[in-house]
C-alpha cells in the first residue's frame, strides 16, 4: 500500500534491470566520438566514406527524391510502392529473366533493411519450423546471432574462415555442411562476406550448391553488398544465380543500406521462393502478420527512393555507375597486384583520371585503399604477410590483428575497430592510410612472437559459448563471438 507521498522513496520497478552490454559495433563508434584526438580514425562501422572521410549521398538518391512527390503518400500509393519495391528488388537479386520472376514464384515484403529482413525470416522460420536451428558461418556479422537468439532459434556454426591462410576453409566448410542434419537452415553471404571479406569462388559455390541439394538444406542469403563488392550488381549475385540454376528454393534478405547509401532509411526486402503464386500469397500474408505486430510497415520514404531508383531507367543507370568498378580500372588493379606493380596514389590518378573524374566510384575507392594500405605496410618492411588485405572483398578487411593489438591501436594511436580486428576500409582515406599503416606496423612488428601469434592463434576463444559448434578444434577463429 503506497500513497503519493511515499512513492518517491519506494524502490524503482527497474532495480533488477542491469545495464546491457554495449553492442560491439556501435560501441566502437561511441568510443571514437568521445575521443578528442584530432587525428583519430574510425574503422568500426561499415558505412561508406569518401576520401575526405565524409558520408556520401549518392546522386541517384538525390535525383530520385527530387522526382518523388514530397510527402504526398496516400495509403493506396504506399501499397503500390511497396509492391514495386519488392518486384524490382526481386529482379535485381534473382535476375530479370529468371523463371522465378517470370512465374512470380516468390513471396516478398519490404523490411527494415537487412536486420529487419533477417528478423522477419527468423520469426517465420520459428513459426513454421519451431524445432529448427540456423547454421551461421564462423565468423559472421555479430548481429546474426542476436537475431536468431531473440526468436529462440538455436544457432550452430559451420567453419568458414581459415585464420592461417586468411582465406576460405573450403574443405572444412563442405565437411560441416555434410555433417549437418538433412534439411538444415543455413545462412550464407553471397558476396563480400562480413567480417572477413573472404568469398568462395564460383566453382566452390557450385560445389556448395550441389551438396546443399543432396542434403536438402535451406539456403538463406544475407545480401547486404550487391553491387558494392565488385561494382557489378549482376556479378555480385552470382552465388544466388548458381543456387537458382540448381533449383533451390531459397530465401533472401536484401539491404540497400550500403549499395545505395541509404543506411538511416532502413530499406530492405525479404523474399522467399516458393512453388507457385498461391503459396506466395499465403507466405506473404504470414510475413505481413509478423511485421504488423513489430512495427506495422517500414517507412515509406526509403521505400519510395529505392523503388524509384530501380524502376526509372535513367536513375538506375546513374546508380549502376556510382557503384561500378570499370572493367578497365578493375583489370588495371588486378594487373598491378598480380605483377607486383607498385604505384602510388598520384600515379594511379594520372593514369585513370579521365575515367575516374566522371563518377564517384565507391567500390573503386575501397579497392584502391586496400592496395595502398597493403603497399604501405610492405614498404615499412612488415614481417607479416598482408596479401589478405587485397585478396579480401567488399567493405571489410579481416586484418588478423588480435585483441591486444586492437586495444593498443585504440589506446596508443586512437584508431578504432571492432575487437575481432575487422577494419572497415571505408574509413581509410589517402590522408590517413600512412598513419594507419605505421600504427599497424608498430603494434605487430615489435614482438618476435607477434608473428607466431598473428598467424596461428589470432583470436581469443570466447568462453561464453552456449552451443557447441561443429568440429572439435579448440583453436578455431571465433571472430563472431564478441562480448555479448
Amino acid at each position, binding site marked *: 500500500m*503506497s500513497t503519493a507521498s511515499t512513492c*518517491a522513496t519506494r*524502490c*524503482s*520497478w527497474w532495480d533488477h*534491470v542491469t*545495464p*546491457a552490454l554495449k553492442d560491439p559495433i*556501435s560501441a566502437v563508434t561511441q568510443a571514437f566520438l568521445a575521443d578528442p584526438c584530432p587525428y583519430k580514425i574510425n574503422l568500426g562501422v561499415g*558505412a561508406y566514406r569518401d576520401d575526405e572521410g565524409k558520408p556520401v*549521398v549518392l546522386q541517384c538518391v538525390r535525383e530520385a527524391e527530387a522526382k518523388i512527390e*514530397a*510527402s504526398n*503518400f496516400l*495509403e493506396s500509393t*504506399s501499397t503500390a510502392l*511497396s*509492391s514495386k519495391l519488392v518486384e524490382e528488388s526481386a529482379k535485381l537479386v534473382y535476375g530479370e529473366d529468371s*523463371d522465378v520472376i517470370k*512465374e*512470380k514464384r516468390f513471396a516478398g*515484403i*519490404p523490411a*527494415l533493411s537487412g*536486420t529487419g529482413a533477417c528478423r522477419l525470416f527468423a520469426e517465420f522460420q520459428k513459426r*513454421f519450423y519451431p524445432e529448427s536451428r540456423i547454421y551461421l558461418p564462423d565468423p559472421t556479422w555479430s*548481429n546474426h546471432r542476436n537475431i536468431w537468439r531473440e526468436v529462440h532459434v538455436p544457432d550452430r556454426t559451420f567453419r568458414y574462415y581459415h585464420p592461417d591462410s586468411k582465406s576460405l576453409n573450403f574443405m572444412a566448410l563442405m565437411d560441416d555442411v555434410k555433417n549437418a542434419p538433412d*534439411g538444415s537452415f543455413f545462412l550464407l553471404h553471397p558476396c563480400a562476406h562480413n567480417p572477413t571479406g573472404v568469398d568462395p569462388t564460383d566453382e566452390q559455390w*557450385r*560445389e556448395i550448391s*550441389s551438396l546443399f*541439394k*543432396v542434403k536438402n538444406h*535451406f539456403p538463406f542469403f544475407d545480401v547486404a553488398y550487391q553491387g558494392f563488392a565488385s561494382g557489378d550488381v549482376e556479378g555480385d549475385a552470382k552465388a544466388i544465380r548458381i543456387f537458382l*540454376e540448381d*533449383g*533451390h528454393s531459397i530465401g533472401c534478405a536484401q539491404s540497400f*543500406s550500403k549499395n545505395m*547509401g*541509404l543506411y*538511416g*532509411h*532502413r530499406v530492405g526486402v525479404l523474399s*522467399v521462393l516458393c512453388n507457385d503464386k498461391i503459396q*506466395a*500469397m*499465403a507466405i506473404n500474408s*504470414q510475413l*505481413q*502478420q*509478423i*511485421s504488423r*505486430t*513489430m*512495427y*506495422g*510497415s517500414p*517507412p515509406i*520514404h*526509403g521505400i519510395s527512393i529505392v523503388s524509384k531508383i530501380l524502376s526509372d531507367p535513367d536513375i538506375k543507370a546513374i546508380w549502376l555507375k556510382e557503384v561500378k568498378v570499370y572493367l578497365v580500372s578493375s583489370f588495371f588493379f588486378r594487373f598491378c597486384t598480380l605483377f607486383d606493380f607498385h604505384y602510388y596514389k598520384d600515379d594511379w590518378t594520372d593514369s585513370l583520371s579521365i575515367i575516374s573524374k566522371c563518377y564517384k566510384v565507391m567500390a573503386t575507392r575501397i579497392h584502391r585503399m586496400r592496395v595502398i594500405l597493403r603497399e604501405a605496410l610492405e614498404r615499412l618492411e612488415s614481417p607479416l604477410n598482408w596479401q589478405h588485405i587485397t585478396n579480401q572483398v567488399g567493405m571489410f578487411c579481416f586484418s588478423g590483428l588480435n585483441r591486444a593489438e586492437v586495444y593498443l591501436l585504440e589506446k596508443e594511436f586512437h584508431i578504432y575497430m571492432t575487437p575481432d580486428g575487422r577494419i572497415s576500409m571505408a574509413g581509410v582515406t589517402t590522408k590517413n592510410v600512412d598513419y594507419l599503416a605505421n600504427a599497424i606496423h608498430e603494434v605487430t612488428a615489435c614482438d618476435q612472437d607477434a608473428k607466431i601469434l598473428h598467424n596461428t592463434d589470432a583470436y581469443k576463444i570466447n568462453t561464453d559459448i552456449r552451443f557447441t559448434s561443429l568440429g572439435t578444434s579448440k583453436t578455431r577463429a571465433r571472430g563472431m563471438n564478441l562480448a555479448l
Partner: protein
Amino acid sequence: MASSVLSLASATPSASLSSHEIEKGKLNLGNSSLCFKKEKTNPFMKTKSVGRISMAVASNVSRFEAITMAPPDPILGVSEAFKADNHELKLNLGVGAYRTEELQPYVLDVVKKADKLLLEKGENREYLPIEGLAAFNKVTAELLFGADNPVIKQQRVATVQGLSGTGSLRLAAALIERYFSGAKVLISSPTWGNHKNIFNDARVPWSEYRYYDPKTVGLDFEGMIADIKAAPEGSFILLHGCAHNPTGIDPTPEQWETIADVIQEKNHIPFFDIAYQGFASGSLDADASSVRMFVARGMEVIAAQSYSKNLGLYAERIGAINVVCSSSDAAARVKSQLKRIARPMYSNPPVHGARIVASIVGDATLFKEWNAEMEMMAGRIMNVRQKLFDSLSSKDKSGKDWSFVLKQIGMFSFTGLNKAQCDNMTNKWHVYMTKDGRISLAGLSLAKCEYLADAIIDSYHNVS
C-alpha cells in the same frame, strides 16, 4: 493502421495450375542449363555426390507447403471492401486516417515545409544510433511530459525512438517479457485490435478490464476499477492517454485520479498508449494531462507515442517509447536494455520521420503552425460530431439519447450498433465501418452527416 504493408508480388492467384506448369522443371540460365523433374520424391533421399553429377536427386518440394493464409486484418479489410464498391454514395468510416472535408488525405502544411527544408539541407543518410535521433528523443519527451517537467530535468526518462506506436509498444512489450516474466498486461475491453497481437507475439500474457458499457454507450467505470483492483499486484495497465480507440470514451479528470489511486494501491505499472495527442481536444498540452498527472504523483510510467495521426506521418513510422523511472540510473539502464531489444529487430530506427518531427517541434514558428493545424483538424471533427448529433436528434423521433456522439472524443465513435446492424450499414447504405460498431469521424464530411444519420437510424431501429 493507415498504411498497408502488403507487397503482393503476384497478381491474382490462379485457380489451378496447368499440368505444364507443374511438370516444368527446366531452367535456362546463362550457359548452364539443367533439367530436373519436379516430382514429389522423398526430399531426404541421399546419393553420393561427386561434383555436380547428382542433379537428378532430391526434388524441389517447398518446405512451406503447409502454410495457410493468415486471416485478413479486420480494419484494413474494410478499406479493401470499400475500394471494391462502386456505389456513388459509399462512405468509408473504417480506418482512422484523417480526411479533409472533401474526404481527401491531408498532408499537413508544416510537414510539407519541414520536408522541403530537409531536402534543401541535403543531410546525410547515416545510421542513427540504436536509440534514435537525439534531437527527436529530446523534443518528443518534452512534448509529452512538458519541457519543464522535473522528470526530464532529472534525466529520469528513458526515451527511445520507435517505429510509430506499434513499434514503440513492441519494444515495451519485449522489455516486460524480459524483466517481468509472468506479469500480465491488462487491456481495455474493447481496445485497438493490434494490442493483443503485439502482446501475443511478444509472449506477454494479457487480460481485459471492463471499459465500454453498451447500455450507456459510455464508460463502465465501476467495472474498470473493479477489474484493475482484482488484477494480481504488479500488473501493467494499458491506458489510452486520450481519445480512446475504438470507443472515443475518455475518463473524466476525476475518474483519472481514481484510476491512479487504484493503480498505486495495487502496485501496478501504468502503461500509456498515446496515439492522438492533440487530436482529442485540439490542444497538445491538454491531451497529455492524464499522463502528466500520473507522473506528477511520482509514479513510474511507460508511455508509447505515435506521430501517425497528429502529424499525419502514418507512412514514415515515427514514435517513441518513454519509461519514466524513479532515478536517472534506472533510466539509463532501462534505455540500454531497450536498445538491446531494438538491435536484433531492426538495428536502428529510420531517420526521415524523426528529422521531420524534430524540425517541427524544435522550431518555434513551425511548432506554432502545427498547433494551429492541430486545432483545425480536431475542430473539423468536433464540427462533424455536432452536425451528426443534430441530424440524428432531428431525424430520430424515438427519443433515443444520441448525446454520446458529442461526449465521445477524438477520431472515433462507438455507435452502439451490433454486428447485424453494422452489416446493414454496409449492405444497404454502403457505409463501411468495423463490425464492432466503430465509425471513424475523420472520414466523415459535414455534407454526408445527414445521409449517415439516416443510415444509423435505420440500422438501429429496423435491424436487430
